[in-house]
C-alpha cells in the first residue's frame, strides 16, 4: 500500500501538482500582459456587482438610482419644458426651476441625451434621467452570474464527456462524441437567443440561462476540444502505472485524468462562455427578452428612444456605456483564458 502511495506521489510530481510548479505557473500568468489586463477587468466587474446593493442601501437613494425607474425629475423636467402642452409646462417649469432657476418657459433645453458628467450623476443620465453608473453597476451582477453558472456547468459537462469517453472508449465514446458533433452543429448562442425570446423567456433567470448554455456548449464545442486531450492523456505511461497498481476507474479518472485536463479545460471554458454573455445581452437588446434589467436593455432603450420620441438623436451615452460593458466583460474572460494558457505553457495538441 505504501508503495502505491509513493508511486502516486511520484506521479503527482511529474504531472506538475507541486507547490513549486504552482508558483512558476503563477509567475508566468503574472508575466502575461493580456492575462493580467483580463484579471484586473474581472476584479473591477466583480467590485461593481458587489457595490450596487451596498450603495443603494447606504448613500444612494434607491428611488433615484434604480436602473429602470430611477427618474431624476430635474433632468426629466429639463427635457419636458420645451416639449409638452402649456398646462403641463407650468408644472414642469415649477419643478425644474426649483433646482435650476435659469430655465425659462419654452426654452429649448440642450442635452437631449440627458445630463452630462456631474457630482449627482457621475457618468451622466439618459434622456429620462436614469443614472448611467447605476445601470452599469446593476447590470454587472446578472452578467457575472450568467458567466459563472455557464462556466461551472460547461466544466462539469465537458470534463465528464471527455473523461468518460476517453476512459471507457467503445460504445460510450461513440455515443458521447457523436452527441458532441451534433451539438456543435447547433450553435449554443443561437439556441439561447431562440429560447430566450420564446414563451419561456421569463423562466430564464441568469442562473438557469447560464446552466442551459453550459449544457449546450459543454456537450458540444468544449467537449470536442477536451476529448482529444483526454485521449492523449490516457495513452501516457502513468495511467498504465496507476492501473497496474490497482487503481479503479473512479480513481484514475478523478485523480489522474481530470486534473491533467483542468488547465486546458479552463481555457476553452472561459473562451466558450463569452458567447453566453453576448447572447444574453443580445436578447435584452431585441427587447423580447425576460423581464429583468441587463446591460443589453440599455442598448435597447437607446435605440428605441428616437422611435418613441420623434426625430431626436440616439442617446449615444447610454448605448456606448452598455455596449462597452458587455464587450469588456466578454473580453476579460477571454484575456484571463490567454493568461492561463501562458501559465501552463500548453503542450502541443
Amino acid at each position, binding site marked *: 500500500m505504501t508503495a502505491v502511495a509513493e508511486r502516486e506521489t511520484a506521479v503527482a510530481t511529474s504531472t506538475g501538482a507541486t507547490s513549486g510548479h504552482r508558483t512558476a505557473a503563477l509567475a508566468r500568468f503574472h508575466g502575461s500582459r493580456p492575462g493580467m489586463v483580463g484579471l484586473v477587468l474581472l476584479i473591477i466587474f466583480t467590485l461593481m456587482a458587489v457595490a450596487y446593493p451596498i450603495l443603494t442601501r447606504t448613500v444612494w437613494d434607491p428611488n433615484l438610482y434604480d436602473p429602470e425607474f430611477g427618474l431624476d425629475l430635474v433632468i426629466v423636467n429639463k427635457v419636458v419644458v420645451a416639449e409638452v402642452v402649456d398646462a403641463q409646462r407650468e408644472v414642469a417649469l415649477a419643478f425644474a426651476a426649483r433646482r435650476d432657476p435659469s430655465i425659462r418657459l419654452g426654452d429649448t433645453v440642450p442635452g437631449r441625451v440627458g445630463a452630462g458628467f456631474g457630482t449627482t450623476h457621475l457618468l451622466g443620465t439618459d434622456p429620462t434621467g436614469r443614472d448611467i453608473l447605476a445601470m452599469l453597476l446593476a447590470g454587472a451582477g446578472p452578467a457575472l452570474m450568467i458567466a459563472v453558472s455557464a462556466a461551472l456547468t460547461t466544466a462539469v459537462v465537458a470534463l465528464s464527456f471527455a473523461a468518460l469517453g476517453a476512459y471507457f472508449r467503445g460504445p460510450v465514446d461513440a455515443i458521447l462524441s457523436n452527441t458532441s458533433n451534433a451539438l456543435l452543429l*447547433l450553435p449554443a448562442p443561437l439556441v439561447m437567443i431562440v429560447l430566450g425570446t420564446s414563451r419561456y423567456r421569463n423562466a430564464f433567470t441568469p442562473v438557469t440561462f447560464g446552466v442551459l448554455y453550459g449544457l449546450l456548449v459543454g456537450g458540444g464545442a468544449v467537449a470536442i476540444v477536451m476529448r482529444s486531450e483526454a485521449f492523449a492523456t490516457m495513452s501516457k505511461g502513468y495511467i498504465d502505472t496507476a492501473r497496474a497498481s490497482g487503481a479503479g476507474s473512479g480513481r484514475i479518472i478523478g485523480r489522474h485524468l481530470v486534473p491533467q485536463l483542468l488547465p486546458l479545460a479552463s481555457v476553452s471554458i472561459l473562451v466558450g462562455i463569452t458567447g453566453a454573455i453576448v447572447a444574453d445581452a443580445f436578447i435584452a437588446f431585441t427587447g423580447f427578452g425576460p423581464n429583468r434589467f441587463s446591460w443589453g436593455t440599455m442598448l435597447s432603450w437607446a435605440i428605441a428612444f428616437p422611435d418613441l420620441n420623434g426625430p431626436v438623436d440616439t442617446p449615444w451615452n447610454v448605448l456606448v456605456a452598455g455596449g462597452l460593458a458587455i464587450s469588456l466583460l466578454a473580453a476579460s474572460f477571454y484575456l484571463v483564458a490567454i493568461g492561463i494558457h501562458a501559465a501552463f505553457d500548453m503542450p502541443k*495538441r
Partner: protein
Amino acid sequence: MTRYLAGRIFAGLVTLVIFVTILFFMAEILIPGDYVTQFTLGMSPQDRAALRAELGLDQPLLTRYLDYMAGLLRGDLGETGGGGSVIDALIAFLPWTLLIFVFAMAIAFPIGHRLGKIAGWRDGTPGAAGLTMASVGLYTLFPPLLVFFLVVFVSGLTDNQGIGALRALLKDGALSVDVAWSMLWTVVVIALALGVAALGLDRYHRTLPAWVWALGLIAGPVLIWMARGMWSDVIVILRYLALPIIAVAILAFGEVALVSKSTVKEASHEEFVFAARAKGLPDKDIRDHHVARYALLPTLSKLMVSVPFMLVGLMIIEISFAWPKDGAFGMTVPGMSSALFTSLENRDTTMVLGGLLAVGIIVLLVRLFLDVLQAALDPRIRIGSRAQ
C-alpha cells in the same frame, strides 16, 4: 483517399441524423403553440381543427417526426405557415447571409492570418501582446455596438438608404436572388480551383505565389461577372452589403488572428525549426515557409470549431442592422436571421427548423471540406484512418 472521404461523409450523415432529431424535439417542446394558435384567433374550433389537419399538426409527435425525416430524405423540408415550401424560402434567404460570410472571411482571413503569424513568431513582445488584446477586443465587441459605430462613422461610404433599398429592389423584381447565388458560386469555384492548383504544385515542391492567389481571387470573379453581364447588379449588391461585410470581417479578424498566433507560436517550438536555424536559413524564411506552412492545418481545424459561432455573430449583425423593425439604423438584411426571427415570432416551427437545419448543414459542409483538405495536405491522416 476515396475510402477516407466515404468514411467522413458517413460520419457526417450520422451526425446530421442525431442533429435533426435533437432539433426536432427541442423545437416541438420549446417553441410554444403552433402556427394555427398564433394566427386564427377569430376562427371557430372546427375551422381550426380543419386547418390543423390540413397542415398535419393533428398527428402525434412521433408520426410528425418520421414524416419530417422521410421528407428530409426527399429533400423536402415541409411548408412554411404562409404556404410556400421551406426550401424555396431558404433559397431566397440563404445567399445573402453566405455572401456576407464569404466576402468577410476573404477580407479577414489573409489579414488576420498574416498579423497573427508575425505576432506568434515574436510572442512576448509588447507588439504581440497589443495585437492579442486588440484581437480579443474586436472578437468580443458587442455586435450591436459595432454596428452603431459603423453606421455613425462609415455610412457615408454607402447609400444611406443602405440595405433597406436592397430589399425594395428585390421586391420590385429588378434584382433577382439568382444573381446572388451566381456571385457566390463564382467565388467558391475560383477559390477551389486555385486551391487544387496549389495542391498540384505542392507535389513538385512549388508553392502558388501570394500574388497569384490575390489576382485570381479578385480579377477572376470580376472578369466572369463582367463577361456574364451581371456587373451592374454585382456593384449594387456589394454597395448595399458593404457595411455588414465590414462588420463581420472585423469580428472574424480577431478570431483568425488569435488562432493563427497560438498555432504559429506552438509550431515555433518544433524540432524542424531548430534544424532550419542550424542550416542558417534567414528568420523570415523559417517563419513563412516552415512554421506558417506547418501551422496552417491546426489553424484551419481550430477555426472549424468557431464557424458556428461566427455564423451566430453574423446573424446578430444582420439583425442589429435591421433593429428595430424597419431600422433605427435604416437597414434590413434580407438574410437568414430575419427569416429565422420572423418565423419565430409567427410560431412557424417548420421554418425555424428549416433555418436551424440550414445553419447545421452549412457548418457540416465546411467541416467536411476542411477534413478533406487536411487529408489532402497531411498523408498521416489518410493513412492513419486506413490503419484503424
